[in-house]
């Protein structure tokens, strides 16, 4: 296992929803470090806080307390637009329900992160086609997501996640909506990406999927359980 500089360095992270009497402590002091090139599975039952942790790691949400450095840069307490920029440049999301724009073509879905990054039209198109070829669905570029199967949609989502060459791929139950065969194909894609040097963080409740990762981080009641699977 390569252990170079950490991509994710989290220290004493807490997240409290609501206030005063009705406060819910979703995260109660998480310490977590993920190195570049790692394949990590965040696992835990629903209500464990893993979704909250994923949101914070993905810069979709801010912690209540604690520190979070992404790629060496402190991101806790950054403004909404600064977080948007970081999401755009450093994080690629893959969601359980794909979250593709339903009325935009496959190609445009993949182009969109580059559009927000200010990549010019031609370069955007070329790279999007390249990525679609890489995930094996270049022939579907002009179609709408609705015309694609679940597995194909998730491949589009992966292509989109890779668009801006992120530091980290963050996949939230990426096989949750797929049958086991296509699920395995998608997971194989993640494994391949990992082999090619990408940092992959996979959030799941399924231990068999988590077993594919190089490291398992188990979340329970808002804390990291110190039980780690063998690499």
């Amino acid at each position, binding site marked *: 296992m390569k252990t170079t500089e950490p991509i994710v360095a989290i220290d004493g992270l807490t997240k409290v929803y609501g206030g005063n009497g009705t406060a819910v402590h979703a995260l109660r002091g998480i310490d977590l470090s993920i190195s570049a090139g790692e394949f990590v599975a965040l696992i835990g039952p629903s209500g464990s806080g893993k979704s909250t942790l994923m949101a914070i790691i993905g810069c979709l949400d801010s912690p209540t307390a604690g520190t979070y450095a992404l790629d060496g840069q402190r991101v806790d307490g950054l403004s909404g637009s600064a977080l948007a920029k970081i999401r755009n440049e450093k994080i690629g999301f893959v969601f359980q329900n794909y979250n593709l724009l339903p009325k935009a073509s496959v190609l445009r879905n993949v182009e969109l992160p580059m559009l927000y990054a*200010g990549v010019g039209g031609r370069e955007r198109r070329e790279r999007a086609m390249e990525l679609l070829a890489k995930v094996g669905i270049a022939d579907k570029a002009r179609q709408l997501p609705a015309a694609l199967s679940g597995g194909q949609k998730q491949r589009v989502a992966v292509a989109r996640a890779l668009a801006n060459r992120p530091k980290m791929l963050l996949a939230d139950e990426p096989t949750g909506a797929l049958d086991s065969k296509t699920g395995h194909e998608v997971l194989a894609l993640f494994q391949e990406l990992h082999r090619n040097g990408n940092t992959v963080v996979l959030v799941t409740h399924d231990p068999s999927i988590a077993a594919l990762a190089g490291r398992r981080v188990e979340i329970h009641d808002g804390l990291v359980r110190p039980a780690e699977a063998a690499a």
Partner: protein
Amino acid sequence: MSAGTGALRERLRSAWVEMRENPGRSSLQALGVMLGVASVLGGFSIADSQRRQADKLFVRIGGLDKLNVQPAAAVRDGTTPSAMETANLGLRGADAESGQSLDRPGIDGVSQQKTARVRVRSPYADQERQITGIAGDYLAINGYSVEEGRIFSAHDLDVAAPVAVLGKEAASVFFPTGEAVGRTMRVADTPVTVIGVLQEKVFRFREGQGNQFAWRNRVIALPASLVSRRMQGDSYQRLDRVTFRLPEVNALAGFAKQLDVLLTANHRLQRDFRLDDVAARMKKMRSQGDIYNMIFMLSGVLALLGGGMVNVNIQMATLKERVREVGVKMAIGAGGREIFKEFMTEALLLTAAGGGVGLAIGIGFSKIITASIGIPLHMEATSFAWAYALAAVFGFFFALYPAIKASRLSPMEALRYE
């Protein structure tokens, strides 16, 4: 990344793609603007067409470009006239001549008019009619032209020749068999020879309506000198009206002032004449149609307001559908500002497109309305500008609220939105 213009073009293109991806909500959004623009443009154009037609009538009946001098009673009822008042001679040909001698570079013509109501007889008809003794450029000023024969020569006017020129209606009443020219008729027992027949004058405010100028075709014109000497008059040959026509409506006020001074002096400071109130007339002319403009502007603004509300409503309704979309875009790196700009760009593009279609609809709308009420269509460039500018302003303000609302969504909540 290229500079600002490139980014703008990218944004416009992107907004265009989104519009095409969502034809339903886009066309609904544009609809409000479209109808608003159409109704502003249509309203203005119909008002303009109507006013132009009214102006035409006003000018052609003899209002705008003419200054009339008429006699006025200088002596008040129940008072004994002073020597000065008695000695005054009233309105005469001399007034017309001295008015002309002001020699403004632009007096188009001066006419003198002396009317009387007398018995007029021909072999075919015997009626009491108003006759008009004329001198100067009466026929030209009043827009008559000859259909048959000729009009009075200077000699006819000088010597009070017993000749007459008839309007179309008068000719057909007194000589129903045609061939009026050369025939003789008796006017107040004076035999006169018809030397000309005038062309029929027609002006209809709308097609199918009555001829506003029917009364003009009833004219029986004689030399003013003849009317004064032989039919109704006095040794001073007083006139009923002297009319000056100027080519420039705007020069009228200045001319009226000078003429007033001159005539007051000529009349030994007695106010026994009356000039048209030019200022009041100009004001009336300018205010004509203003009320229509106001009404149409108001209805256009109301239509735009309604359209704007519809627009906001649709945007708010589709915002629900768009929340997930906004969430996804935020997740892949769009900031609130980016979302705001996207919403605004799209709304403004839709406003522009809807406005363009609205202008086309407005043209068609104006054409149909003006055709149905039978007046010629007249559209001003400023109406187009107004309609479009109003749409732009409304489009902008009604786009703001949904755009702000969308830009303030939290990415996490938006993504989880069901």
